[in-house]
């Protein structure tokens, strides 16, 4: 128990020093106060670090006694003092009175494996959850900033932002005693510090190390989440070898890329510092004297952004979902009132005015609530950018990633579920679509390939397009493969689009890997499943030699759909409009029967199977005669079929409701909605109906 307390205090000192160093570098010596160092002095003394305390006291004194010293001189005094303190703390020989063994001397170095992961979660769960969210946000920001930095390694403000991100995570982690995260971030911070002080150039390998460490921290966060949920967390990835590797990046590449400057002694002759200044440590390089130069406006911008953040509130999504539900019910209730025949016949103008006012307000409330769940898609694109970069490096292909429409907003849950499909599609483009540089040169193409991800609105839907300029889909090869697998019966003629859709077949992918046609198969069934779950559709455009574009078309929100209300017998059903391409009343000459059983309709030159809804649902139709009813041409997984219903009632926007867990196994029904007259209508699952056809 005592050990733990000391440990915390020790960490507090290290953190304090880190914080002071950061402030010194970012904000300038003018922001530092002698009081800061007096605090440091007293806590170091308490912990039994007399030498640390002495150095801290000296810095405090020089700040107090010589406030009029020129800024660079003062900076040097403080900076070298901090370096000294850091080294004293790192040095196991430093006599630390209460800590007889050196095992807790530097929490980030001396690994607290035994202290970690046991009592840590006893701390306030809320705090930890907040930490996880915040750290995750920082990691996302760090990743995207790293990519910017890789392109333009002179972006000092970006580098500083990354540094701050890691620093915040480290601070929080040490406060909550997550030793693994703390030690990783500490090492990365050292690495970034060298880069920041121009002693290490931002090389791709450095970016690799930093990006990898974000993955590690993320893994640790997942482990903490697991632990909070009472699950057995995955074993940590953090070990000494890993930390050494990060450290090697610090030392190894530092000398390779840019020789270390000769030992600089920042000691003014009259300064009251006597101990020699060691070589390594955070020392700002000359062209980056803190608080001056072009850094300042960028810093101000950043602060402005932070101010903007403070006007937003974090809300539990459960509450938001509940609000959505309630608003949905409110709108339904309002519609019922509006359609009430008693109120319609009322002649009171005030009542009529109030009613229409209510209708307007309800519509506004619904619009705003739906908007609350909307997030920009940019975050997903950032993740994709990271994947492209990693995979391109691994596959040794030169690829430029472009994105547009980051500000396009879509439902939070849709955005989250979009990241997997995006990942798989980009992976496929890189693995199979994009040729190697040599091949591209031979083909007369730009050796650097492009992958472009864009998002935009189109006729009430959101379209996410993924374009590459690779070799395109091999139509003939896909068809041959599909015939071989029995996915396409011999002699059947398919349109280009239908052939391309074959790559989403589950069985297709694995076989695909063996024969390397223009590829695309691995994980594509995952993509299709995800997109279907989101009630979206995929379309493919591909030209041999020029590249491929995948279009993922998604509904704006999962809560409302446009539906076609149809009637079968006494029941009304809602067909989602996105899967309907046309509807008509057939004439006898369009209809044919195969072997007296399977009914087909000839629609625009294509022979489509007919599914009778009344037979599927075993209900009594108004008419059994196809020419007296209506055929709806619906599309399921790239294939069209005709759905036979009695008649069409109209088009309506409906709020989707779940039928509840009791009916969750129904394949043909996607949910239900309350129609204008207050009755419940079932929303049909077109894919489920087509799959279950007899």
């Amino acid at each position: 128990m005592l050990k733990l307390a000391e440990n915390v205090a020790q960490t507090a000192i290290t953190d304090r020093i880190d914080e002071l160093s950061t402030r010194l570098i970012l904000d300038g010596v003018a922001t530092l106060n002698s009081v800061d160092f007096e605090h440091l002095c007293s806590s170091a003394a308490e912990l039994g670090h007399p030498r640390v305390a002495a150095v801290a006291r000296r810095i405090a004194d020089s700040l107090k006694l010589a406030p009029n010293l020129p800024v660079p001189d003062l900076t040097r005094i403080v900076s070298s003092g901090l370096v000294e303190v850091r080294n004293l703390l790192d040095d196991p020989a430093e006599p630390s009175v209460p800590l007889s063994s050196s095992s807790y001397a530097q929490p980030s170095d001396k690994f607290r494996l035994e202290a970690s992961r046991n009592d840590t979660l006893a701390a306030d769960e809320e705090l930890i959850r907040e930490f996880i969210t915040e750290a995750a946000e920082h990691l996302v920001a760090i990743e995207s900033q790293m990519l910017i930095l890789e392109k333009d390694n002179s972006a000092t403000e970006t580098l500083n932002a990354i540094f701050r991100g890691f620093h915040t995570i480290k601070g929080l982690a040490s406060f909550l005693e997550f030793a693994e995260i703390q030690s990783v971030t500490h090492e990365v911070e050292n690495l970034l510090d060298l880069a920041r002080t121009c002693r290490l150039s931002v090389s791709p390998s450095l970016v690799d190390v930093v990006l990898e460490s974000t993955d590690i921290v993320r893994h640790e966060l997942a482990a903490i989440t697991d632990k909070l949920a009472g699950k057995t967390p995955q074993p940590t990835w953090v070990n000494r070898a890993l930390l050494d590797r990060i450290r090697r990046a610090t030392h190894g590449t530092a000398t390779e890329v840019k020789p270390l400057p000769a030992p600089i002694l920042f000691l003014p002759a009259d300064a009251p510092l006597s101990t020699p200044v060691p070589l390594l440590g955070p020392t700002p390089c000359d062209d980056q004297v803190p608080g001056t130069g072009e850094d300042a406006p960028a810093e101000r911008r950043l602060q402005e952004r932070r101010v903007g953040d403070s006007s937003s509130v974090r809300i539990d999504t459960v509450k938001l979902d509940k609000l959505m539900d309630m608003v949905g019910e409110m709108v339904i209730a309002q519609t019922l009132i509006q359609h009430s025949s008693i109120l319609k016949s009322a002649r009171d103008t005030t009542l009529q005015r109030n009613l229409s006012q209510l209708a307007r307000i309800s519509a506004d409330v619904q619009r705003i609530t739906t908007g609350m769940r909307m997030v920009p898609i940019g975050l997903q694109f950032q993740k994709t950018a990271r994947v492209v970069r990693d995979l391109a490096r691994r596959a040794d292909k030169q690829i430029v990633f472009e994105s547009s429409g980051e500000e396009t907003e879509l439902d939070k849950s849709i955005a989250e579920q979009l990241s997997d499909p995006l990942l798989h599609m980009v992976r496929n483009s890189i693995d199979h679509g994009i040729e190697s540089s040599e091949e591209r040169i031979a083909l007369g193409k730009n050796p650097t390939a492009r992958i472009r991800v864009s998002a935009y609105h189109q006729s009430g839907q959101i379209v996410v397009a993924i374009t590459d300029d690779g070799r395109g889909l091999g139509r003939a090869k896909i068809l041959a493969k599909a015939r071989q697998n029995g996915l396409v019966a011999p002699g059947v003629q398919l349109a280009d689009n239908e052939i391309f859709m074959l790559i989403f077949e589950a069985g297709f992918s694995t076989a695909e890997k063996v024969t390397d046609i223009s590829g695309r198969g691995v994980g594509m069934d995952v993509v299709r499943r995800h997109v279907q779950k989101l009630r979206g559709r995929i379309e493919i455009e591909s030209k041999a030699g020029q590249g491929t574009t995948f279009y993922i078309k998604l509904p704006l929100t999962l809560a409302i759909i446009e539906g076609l209300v149809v009637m079968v017998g006494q029941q009304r059903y809602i067909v989602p409009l996105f899967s309907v391409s046309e509807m008509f009343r057939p004439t006898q000459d369009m209809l044919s029967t195969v072997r007296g059983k399977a009914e087909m309709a000839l629609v625009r030159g294509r022979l489509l199977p007919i599914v009778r809804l009344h037979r599927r649902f075993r209900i009594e139709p108004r008419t059994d005669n196809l020419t007296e009813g209506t055929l709806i041409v619906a599309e399921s997984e790239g294939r069209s079929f005709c759905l036979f219903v009695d008649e069409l009632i109209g088009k309506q926007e409906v709020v989707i409701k779940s039928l509840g867990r009791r009916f969750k196994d129904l394949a043909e029904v996607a949910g239900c909605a309350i129609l204008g007259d207050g009755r419940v209508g079932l929303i049909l699952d077109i894919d489920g109906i087509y799959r279950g056809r007899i």
Partner: protein
Amino acid sequence: MQATQLPQASPTMPLDFSKRAGKYLIFRLGVEEFGTEVLKVREIMGLQDITAIPQVPPHVKGVINLRGKVIPVIDLRLKFGMESEEYTPRTCIIVMRTHEDNEELLIGMIVDGVVEVLNLTASDIEDTPDFGPGVVTPYLTGMAKIKDSVKILLDIDQVLSSNDFGVLPTLIQ
């Protein structure tokens, strides 16, 4: 006696019979009168349009809109294996609160008519008679004899448990 026709179900936890006393809503199915705890009744409503659900057992009549909530409705006659009968103006839907995995679920049950609310004391209630080996009656908590008539008391959570709401194939096997 019709109770012997109750479908068999797996035996469950023994019921706490000491808590049987209390207010009961008495309703009618054919000639039998049944009772269910008033505390579990959310509301009683007249028959309304029910949206049929495909591929479910016959006693699951479909879903209704209860002020914006979509809730399932079952026909208790069919559920108990009785003959189905034309609905009359007295036919009504009793909306019950049931609990499943700590979640409150509302379910409507169609009955021939509501009779009364009775305050039953522990001495009014007798244990369910033994219907012989092989007849398990998990739905029943006991029988109440009041004014020469017998009311069959139901454990409504057992009656409305979700295990037979599934689609037909799972029910048939």
